[in-house]
């Protein structure tokens, strides 16, 4: 009478990978290999962020604030770019904690999780040059970027569940 895993899979289909409990905490039901993979991507994100806005793949993470006024924007970035990087670093640390244990997490931690998943999608989406007409179900297996498209889809799936748990849906 061992656990063949079908119970886990069924629960995952029914509740999704992110679940809100009645006490307002959240649980993340991911397999160990998923947690390890996500931690690995988070490490890569942190390494990329060390490059700062110079890296082209990170343009979406460091957007222009004053698009009609380069001088005001330069002034804004002078003060805020570092603060933005620090805020991202703090969210990444939170997500490391979240992914390193099975313990229930707070809504604030769930929001950091959503935000970091979104950052990963922004970087990957920039690398893949995603457009609104892209349908990643249509990407062929022999596409050189097939794995990245799969990952992009996976992150979107996980983020969608996280958002829906936080929204209480």
């Amino acid at each position, binding site marked *: 009478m061992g656990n063949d895993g079908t119970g886990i899979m069924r629960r995952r289909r029914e509740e999704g990978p992110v679940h809100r409990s009645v006490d307002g905490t959240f649980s993340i039901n991911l397999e160990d290999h998923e947690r390890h993979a996500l931690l690995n991507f988070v490490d890569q994100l942190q390494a990329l962020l060390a490059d700062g806005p110079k890296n082209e793949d990170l343009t979406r993470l460091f957007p222009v604030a*004053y698009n009609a006024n380069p001088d005001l924007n330069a002034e804004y970035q002078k003060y805020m770019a570092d603060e933005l990087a620090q805020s991202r670093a703090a969210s990444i640390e939170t997500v490391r904690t979240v992914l390193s244990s099975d313990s229930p997490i707070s809504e604030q931690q769930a929001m950091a999780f959503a935000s970091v998943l*979104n950052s990963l999608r922004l970087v990957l989406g920039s690398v893949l040059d995603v457009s609104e007409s892209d349908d990643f179900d249509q990407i062929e297996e022999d596409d050189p970027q097939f794995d990245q498209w799969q990952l992009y889809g996976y992150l979107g799936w996980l983020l969608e569940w996280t958002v829906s748990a936080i929204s209480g849906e």
Partner: protein
Amino acid sequence: MPVTTPPFSQVAQPDLAEQVDESVEPQKPWLVLVWNDPINLMSYVSLIFQKLFGYSKEKADALMMDVHEKGRAVVSSGTRERAELDVFRLHEHGLWATMEQES
């Protein structure tokens, strides 16, 4: 002949009027815009509007649909400092936000 002070209206009023012009004339508000992009999920964008601005789900969904269909939407407005803070918080969450003074 007693020394009298000039009537209030002759001396004080021009100064007062000048002060009023400088300090009370309303500044045009700064608008915070969010732009459409092909990466951010619609549900995520709506959630961020709810969490950052305290908007109802209905209002956040409507703003998100405006961004999606019209390419951009004004999501908040106020002083320049307030708008910078909102832009920063939107950037923290990966939304494509900019600000400009109302024309």
